[in-house]
């Protein structure tokens, strides 16, 4: 066994236990230091997010990674929890399953929101912290590098993380951005003070929106929000004038009747000068009469429209799972083959050194018998010997590499050792 994982994820462990297991940055640093003291020579990367706490450990043959019981005790001690309380809740995996799991985690396949990209930066941070504390080694380094490569492939070759899932992000990125190229020269009108409106506004501000006007039936509330979100508060009585000037409206009032009906809109339509108007009506019941959407130049999206778009995106992500899993499986196999191939290194080195030694001895004998050879001829003969040795060595190396795909090539290694009298 060279790789081991002990973890608690949102899939199997209740939130109450995950909360007790979660590490702050300082606690994680302390835990890494404690691990190095408890298990010298072993590697550890500690990944702690709101949805998972995972210990990735590794060790070479001479100092294998800690057992699951040792890891469980270690984790319990670090968090001041009775180890017995954790038993049965945590997942323990070894070798190939660890690699597959990490690659899936980094790619967002194990996230609560499928394909969310934030986990990748959290994986990077966990690895960086372990590197800074010298708790990584060749195995975890290679494994995490491969995990990042896998995540990159999944992101570029599938659409699993591309479709947006939150209503504000879909409203801004897929609809408002479809109409407007830029927001910095647009006038944004915020009606009401809903939480979702504030989030939508943040997306718009990230996109460059600067001219923001807030309207609320309570001017005091509008002023308070304007100071918090950035913008100008205006009296509710100015609704028509503001509608005429606005390019984009985000509406979340708690009104039981539409705030803007078709008659009101028709009255201000001519004052708009033909400019397009995007309305993100996030209120329930709706603030804008649906009939307004038939007016030319009006792009009206209700919360139902946006929710349907989000659901469609969620389905698109689900459809990408098989392709993403195939990439994870392919990268896992590749990583494991390389890992297994590492075992063959010492044997190959011995074999090569033995052949080189024999070759050198033969060359010395040949050069003594043929002293008339000049340095150029000697160099050519030496090169020919090297090529001959390399060609002889090539087939067993290829066989070893091929065999590594199925696991450590112990049989072939034993055969080579016995055939060529190599030491263990």
């Amino acid at each position, binding site marked *: 066994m060279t790789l081991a994982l002990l973890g608690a994820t949102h899939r199997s462990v209740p939130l109450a236990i995950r909360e007790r297991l979660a590490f702050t940055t300082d606690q994680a640093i302390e835990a890494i230091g404690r691990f190095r003291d408890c298990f010298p020579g072993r590697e550890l990367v500690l990944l702690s997010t709101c949805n998972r706490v995972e210990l990735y450990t590794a060790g070479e043959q001479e100092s294998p990674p800690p057992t699951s019981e040792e890891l469980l005790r270690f984790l319990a001690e670090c968090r001041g929890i009775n180890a017995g309380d954790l038993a049965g809740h945590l997942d323990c995996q070894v070798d190939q399953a660890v690699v597959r799991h990490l690659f899936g985690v980094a790619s967002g396949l194990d996230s609560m929101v499928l394909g969310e990209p934030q986990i990748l930066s959290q994986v990077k941070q966990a690895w960086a912290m372990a590197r800074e504390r010298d708790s990584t080694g060749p195995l975890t380094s290679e494994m995490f590098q491969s995990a990042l490569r896998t995540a990159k492939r999944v992101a570029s070759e599938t659409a699993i993380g591309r479709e947006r899932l939150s209503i504000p992000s*879909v409203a801004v990125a*897929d609809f408002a951005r479809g*109409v*407007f*190229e830029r927001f910095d020269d647009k006038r944004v009108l915020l009606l009401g003070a809903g939480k979702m409106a504030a989030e939508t506004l943040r997306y718009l501000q990230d996109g460059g929106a600067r001219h923001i006007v807030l309207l609320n039936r309570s001017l005091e509330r509008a002023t308070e929000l304007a100071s918090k979100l950035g913008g100008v508060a205006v009296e509710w009585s100015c609704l028509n004038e503001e509608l005429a000037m606005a390019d984009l409206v985000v509406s979340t009032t708690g009104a039981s009747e539409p705030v803007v009906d078709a008659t009101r809109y028709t009255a201000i*339509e001519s004052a708009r*000068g033909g400019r397009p108007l995007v309305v993100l009506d996030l209120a329930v019941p709706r603030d804008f009469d649906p009939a307004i959407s038939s007016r*030319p130049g009006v792009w009206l999206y209700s919360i139902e429209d946006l929710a349907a*778009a989000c659901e469609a995106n969620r389905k*698109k992500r689900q459809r990408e799972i098989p392709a993403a899993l195939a990439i994870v499986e392919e990268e896992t196999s590749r990583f494991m083959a390389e890992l297994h191939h590492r075992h063959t290194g010492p044997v190959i080195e011995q074999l090569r050194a033995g052949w080189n030694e024999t070759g050198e001895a033969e060359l010395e004998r040949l050069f003594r018998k043929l002293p008339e050879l000049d340095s150029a001829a000697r160099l050519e003969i030496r090169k020919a010997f090297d090529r001959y040795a390399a060609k002889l060595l090539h087939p067993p190396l290829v066989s070893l590499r091929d065999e590594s795909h199925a696991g450590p090539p112990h049989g072939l290694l034993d055969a080579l050792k016995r055939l060529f009298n190599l030491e263990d």
Partner: protein
Amino acid sequence: MGDFVAGISVVCFAASYAVALAFEASRLFFRSGVRGAALVGFAAAGLLAHTLFLLWRAINEPAVPLSSEFDWYLLAAWLLAMGSLWLTLANPKTPVGLFFLPIVLLLIGRAEVASRVPFPQSPATQAWGMIHGSFNLAASVAVAVGAVGGLMWLIQAGRLSRKTTPAQGFRMPSLEKLAALTGRSMVVAATTGAAGFLSGMVLNAINQQSGLLETVPWNDPVVLRMGLLVGWLILAAVIARVLAHRPQGPRVRAWLSLVSLLVLAGSMSWGLVGSSRHGRSPIATLTPTETSETSPATAEEDRP
């Protein structure tokens, strides 16, 4: 090197563009990490071969460089291919080539059936001939760009009206950007089209005065179809301008730009069947070599 460049044929770059178009179309069906590079690679290879082909013709042409109908179509295709590649690099998520490359391929196809005999020119008319050809070229390219912008606008507006998120590999630019592109293209097309027509009139007047080359009568099919095209382009630009501050303005502009492309295509097709004195030498000045190089359509046109 010379032999290599001389060996480049129309098929070489047309095939490269066709492969790039196939890569663009494949966006709609599946994702690929290497497609973007392959697509740009084939489009760039096609553009390079296209450029070398035109340069070779410009250097080896005995007359004024690139002054035949064949060269004119290839130049138009080259400009659009270059624009397509540039826009693809600037907007890697938008299938720009899917809209531009079919027009490029159609222009190359049209070039294949066009006359390769250079338009006859005297030293007195050479500059005006170049001005006339350049303005017409700019107008045609502007019409094509405007139509692509208009078509993209209609597709994007359709998607926004249906309230669906963008389809895989089919993310369009914003309506604002497309409307601006279409509007500018229509103005450029109308202006350069009118300038091309006027410079043609000047050219004809010089020919008439000097008596060196044949003049084109007002009722010549080329004059008529170009007049209609320019008239339409000006009318479309005026309508677009009038409706600029109406809510339905961008949609009308998009349709007008598409109709402009149809009018241009109709005008080009008309050129295949009608007989004209436009760009022809007086029959007495034609050498046997020139007549033998003329395409069947041109041979028909050359009859008095």
